[in-house]
Every structure is written in C-alpha cells, then in structure tokens.
C-alpha cells in the first residue's frame, strides 16, 4: 500500500466511522443474545490490505479512540487490537491470499483471539466476579458474526483504499505467433 497523507486520512476516517458504528449500532443489537464486534475484523481488513505496520498502527489508534469514547482505562483495547493488526499484517506478508474466503476466515479467527485477549487482560487486571460458562457461547457467536461481516467489510475497505493498493497486473497469456501460412 502506498501511504500518502490522503490515504492516511482515509484510513483514519474508516477507523472513526467503524468505532462509531460499533458503539451506536453493532453493540446495541443482538442476534441470539450476542452483539457483533466488527472492530477486530476492521483491523484485520486494514492489515490485510496495508501490511503489519499499517495494521498495528490502525489497531492501536482504533483501540485508543474506542477507549476514549467509552471512558475506559486507556491501553487495553489498543494493546489487543494492535496485536491483531500486526499478526494479520504479518500473515499477509508471509502468505498469498488466493482463496476469497480467507479474509472472512481470518476475521473470524482474529475476532476470537481478540475476545480472548480482552479476557486475559481483564483477568490480569483483576476480575471481581465469577465467569459464566455462557461466555463461551458469546465468544463463538461473535467469531461467527465476524465471519459473515468480515467479507463485506473487506470489500468495502478495499474499495475505499483502492487508489493506494499496489496490485499486480493480471498476467495475460500471450497468443503464440503463428507461422505464416499455417
């Protein structure tokens, strides 16, 4: 990805809209008693298109903005989402994304990882109440929602960042020159 100031502004805008959408819409709707969390999936999409550095910085910034708006302790979401962004970007740098299902699957896996990460940090900071078994349902359903939301999200983000993407030109098979008279 070629990062110009215009593209950085566009990524920042995507992050802000994502956080506002999460807080005002996705966190407040439920399907089967669980709300979707699109932010890890959004960070994964940015990382898959921009690489590990873009993913890490986007994850940190989105987490920071989220904690600011929720008036929570700063740093928790930043730490989790920057890890998600860095690892997703690293995946993109090491492996080719041939399968069109892969972004959605990565969104699913990293959302599960992010929720477990949140839980781990919360446990380390001290959890003052028992944990219900139902939390497993919550984590799994959040990952499934991330799978279904991840694909359209990836397409939208890719469309928004298209001018900055370095795409390899499609290799056209050259027609073999025919010998005259054959």
């Amino acid at each position, binding site marked *: 990805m070629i990062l110009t100031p215009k593209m950085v502004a566009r990524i920042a805008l995507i992050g802000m809209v994502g956080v506002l959408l999460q807080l005002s819409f996705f966190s407040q709707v439920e399907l089967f*008693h669980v709300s979707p969390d699109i932010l890890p999936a959004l960070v994964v999409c940015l990382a898959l298109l921009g690489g590990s550095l873009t993913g890490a910085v986007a994850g940190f910034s989105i987490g920071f903005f989220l904690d600011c708006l929720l008036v929570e302790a700063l740093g928790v979401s930043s*730490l989790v989402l920057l890890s998600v962004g860095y690892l997703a970007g690293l995946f993109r740098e090491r492996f080719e994304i041939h399968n069109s299902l892969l972004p959605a699957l990565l969104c699913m896996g990293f959302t599960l990882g992010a929720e477990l990460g949140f839980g781990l940090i919360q446990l380390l900071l001290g959890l003052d109440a028992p944990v219900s078994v139902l939390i497993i349902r919550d984590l799994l359903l959040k990952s499934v929602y991330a799978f279904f939301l991840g694909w359209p999200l990836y397409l939208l983000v890719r469309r928004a960042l298209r001018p900055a993407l370095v795409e390899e030109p499609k290799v056209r098979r050259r027609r073999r020159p025919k010998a005259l008279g054959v």
Partner: protein
Amino acid sequence: MYRKQVRRRRAVLALLIVGSFVLLTITYGQGSNGLQRGVSTIFSPVQGVADRALKPARDLVDWFDKTFDARGENGRLKSELAKTREQAVAGQEALQENAQLRKLVKLDGSPALAASAYQPVAARVIARSPTVWRSSVNIDVGSGDGVHVNDPVISGAGLIGRIASVEPGSSQVMLLTDHESAVSAKVVPSGVQGVVKPEVGDPETLILDFIDSTKRVHGGQTVVTAGWCAQGLCSFFPPGLPLGEVTKTSVIEQAIEQEATEQVDVRPFADLRNLDLVQVLTGGSRG
C-alpha cells in the same frame, strides 16, 4: 534496505506496545482524564446523531431477535400473567395498609424515604461497550444536567446500574452486569439481606451472595435494593428499587470459615442487553 524496513517496523511495534502499557498503567482505575473528556465532549453529539439515525436499523435487527425469543416466552408469560394478577390484588391491599402504618409510626422523612429526594433525569443510551468483559453504556446526559458520579440509573423495570464517570454532555453507566458492580439488596418479603453481584458473560443472571443460611429464600421472590444508612454513610441506591426475581437457590459450604452461605440466582427485571431510554436519579443522599 529490507533490513532497515524490518528494523523500523519492529521499532514502531515496540513503541506501540510500550505506549499501550504506559497508558494502561497511568489511566487504570483513575476514572476519566482530560483527553477522554475532550474526545467525549466532541463526539457525544456525533454519537447522539448516529444513535438516532441507526435506530430503525437496530429495531429491525431486534425484531428478528425478539421473534425467535417470543415463541419460547409466550407460554411462560401466560402463567406469569395469571400469577401477577393475583399479586396485584394483594399489592393494592398492602399499599393501603402500608400508608396507614407509615402514618402510625411516623416514618415520613426517615432515610428509608430518601428516594423521594431524587430528581429523575431522562437519558438516551448512545453507546455500549462491545466486549463481553466490560458491561457499560454511555448516555447523553452529563454534569450539565446535574448528573454526578454514583447516581443510580433505572429503567422502567428497575435498577440497571450507577454512574461511573461524568462528562459535561455524557456519562458512563456501570451496569449491574459489570464485574465491578455490587449492590446491597434484600429479598422481600423475607427481608434476607445480601450483596448482588454479576456473573460475567451471563446478562440474565445476577448472584445474591453472603446470606445467612438459616433463613430460606424461595424462587419467585423479589429482590430490591436494601438502601442502608448507618453512621452517616448511605448506600448509593435508595431502598426499594426493584432488582430482579429469585430463580434458584443453593447453599455453599465454606471449608475455611466453617460456615455455610446461601447463593441465590436472580434474574434482573430490566433487560440489560436492550437499553434505550433510562433515568438517572440525581440528588438524594449519597454515601
């Protein structure tokens, strides 16, 4: 060139990780800071607009979710309705009797009636924490509307939590299901007292703990806030706010302390997952 890129990438990553830990160390348990207040003040109106604009879409998704739930609830609600009718008739009689008794023992003006000093302020939920590990919502009223930290917050069904932090135009509500939440409560009519705490990850169950096991609690009994006042200190919550209904009781033997405590599962009256309009009880007596 490639090595330089890798080094730069690692340096940025290390900087971000260290930055996260520094932020966490500085701000954990400190409440809101100037930066958060600033961001919150700027984005509260935007969140308010987004909340209103996205309400139809939220309602549509809720409709799907509730249609699934409604099938199972129909039978349960019918039997509950019959039971509630009986209780309503009994309640009317009790209300009359209660008014007469209060006059008799001159309870007016006592701490138990501190609830009457509260001024309700209506608010709309504008944001909700996305992760299951935290349970908080942001509302569109703040210090400018007379809201203070620790003010109780209720919905039409009962208590939902208390104010955790306040900004000029918005506030954060710590819900009953947040792991840091604890409310002193009592079971009526038995009068058994305890502390209501959440079970993280299960928004439909609260746990009433620290109960004297010699007293019995039964399913279906109502749990309300205890609202105690002692030696000048008062609970954040006025007495008598409905919290939930007892669904299950179990006795836990404490091996170390050689005594048994009863643990009661309580289903909150308020639907803590679907909050739209709430009321903040401002003023009143606080501890």
